[in-house]
């Protein structure tokens, strides 16, 4: 006899949602465009303009951007897509809680964010970058993918029916974060107000971990970076679960 409302059973249903998302949404264009091409172009533009920057500095920035853009590429638009395609009501009628539904969407984005990290890390290794702290890097990638995936689903909370409205909103939030998170200019080189802004961005802490793991100078202790990333993850995930439970019925 199954206990449909039990945690284990709801987790199993989250996995079903994640599988569905991966099958449907992660083969669509935005993952490739936002996850790989945009970071790559930003990386090329930045590295051409900063010929004195070291390879590990550039690769750590590319890694941070790639994980960030991939994990937030699709997650903000799944709910609006499902509203528009009229599949959301079918999900809403199924015996799955809104937190489990949200967790399934986060899980799919997390997996893609974490897996895509292999590309920039592979490029770095091919270019001679040494990973000095693989465990810290792995923990950082996993936490960052979870954090950014949760942020992406949180951005979908406004009950907009048109995916492009949420795309616009998420771009307004995502692009400024790139410039205040120490990717192009190290946090320690920023003015005081810039350091305050950087401290408010979760991307800063992942960039910092990547720098440390590739033997570059970094701004904060890695343990602190990991703790702050974990805190942001919990905050974004909790807020996404709570707020989607309030707005889901407004989409139908």
């Amino acid at each position: 006899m199954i206990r449909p409302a039990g945690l284990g059973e709801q987790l199993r249903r989250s996995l079903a949602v994640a599988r569905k998302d991966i099958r449907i949404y992660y083969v669509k264009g935005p993952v490739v465009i936002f996850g790989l091409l945009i970071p790559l172009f930003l990386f090329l533009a930045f590295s051409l303009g900063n010929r004195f920057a070291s390879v590990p500095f550039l690769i750590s920035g590319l890694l941070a951007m790639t994980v960030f853009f991939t994990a937030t590429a699709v997650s903000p638009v799944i709910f609006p897509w499902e509203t528009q395609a009229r599949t959301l009501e079918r999900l809403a009628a199924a015996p799955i809680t809104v937190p489990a539904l949200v967790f399934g969407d986060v899980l799919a984005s997390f997996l893609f964010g974490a897996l895509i990290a292999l590309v920039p890390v592979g490029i770095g290794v091919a270019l001679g970058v040494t990973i000095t702290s693989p465990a810290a890097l792995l923990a950082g990638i996993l936490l960052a993918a979870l954090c950014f995936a949760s942020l992406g689903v949180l951005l979908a909370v406004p009950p907009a029916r048109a995916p492009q409205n949420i795309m616009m909103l998420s771009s307004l939030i995502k692009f400024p974060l790139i410039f205040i998170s120490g990717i192009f200019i190290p946090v320690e080189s920023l003015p005081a107000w810039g350091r305050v802004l950087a401290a408010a961005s979760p991307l800063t802490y992942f960039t910092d971990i990547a720098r440390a793991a590739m033997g570059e100078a970094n701004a904060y202790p890695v343990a602190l970076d990991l703790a702050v990333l974990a805190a942001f993850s919990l905050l974004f995930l909790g807020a996404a679960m709570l707020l989607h439970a309030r707005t889901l019925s407004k989409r139908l």
Partner: protein
Amino acid sequence: MSKAIEVHDLRKAYNGRTAVDGISFDVHSGEVFGFLGPNGAGKTTTVRMLTGIIAPDSGSIAILGHDIVQEPVRGKQAIGVVPETANAYDDLTAWQNLMLMADLYGLRRPAARRPAADLLEELGLADRRDQKVAGFSKGMRQRLILAMALLHDPQLLFLDEPTSGLDVQSTHLMLEILGERSRAGTTIFLTTHNMDEANRLCDRVGIIRAGRIAAIDSPERLKQAINRMFMIEVGFDRPVEAPVFAGLPGIDRVSKHGDTWRLETADTDAAIASVVAAARSSGARILSLSTLSPTLDEVYLRLTGGDA
């Protein structure tokens, strides 16, 4: 008789506009309950509340003994839903859509494969099992959605306008399956605009108007409840003129419809006797004679404010 659905004083408003205004009703286990009403009367809002998709502002709903507001997952687990506006996933195949439902309803894959294959067969989709839904016609999509709702063998099935806009073949197939499920003991809550469908399938119907229940009863009792004249339709083997019926006992009004006559009467017995006598005296033979009772359409129109 146990109750599959118990609704008490249910209310829902959107932006100050009342959609459902304190409705109460029960649906008995094993019955087919039709829920009828004009557009905007509150049907879909009611179904969405009963299926746990939206929360009511007040009132209570028990679905198979579970409070759908307090225990939404347990309530939803026991029911199957064919929502009015829902779709299957276009980018998944019919089989993948069914397996997604199996996972969402907690069916283990090995146990789900057999009923999924049987349902596809039953609904005429077996040869489309591995094709993406994007290429399906409306009828095929709706049949797939029905299969998705039936996969976990629910005790209670909600269908919101399941045959709206479907071709004859799909409609016939779906109604046949609903009939089979009903005979096997599944309780069915059917929202429809199609009076013929409601008349044929439903044990009882509830009619909602402006957010309130206007009537609940069996289709036959509702028809009888309408206080109106009865009609007799009669056909003869030769042309008969209107004056033949003039002044006959029990006949109040006469009108010609094609090659038959419709006689309005308050006393069916007297009218039939008069017609038989009139036929004999005029030398005509009666080829057909039938009494026309009020249709469910007329009941519906009368109760929802239209003119019967």
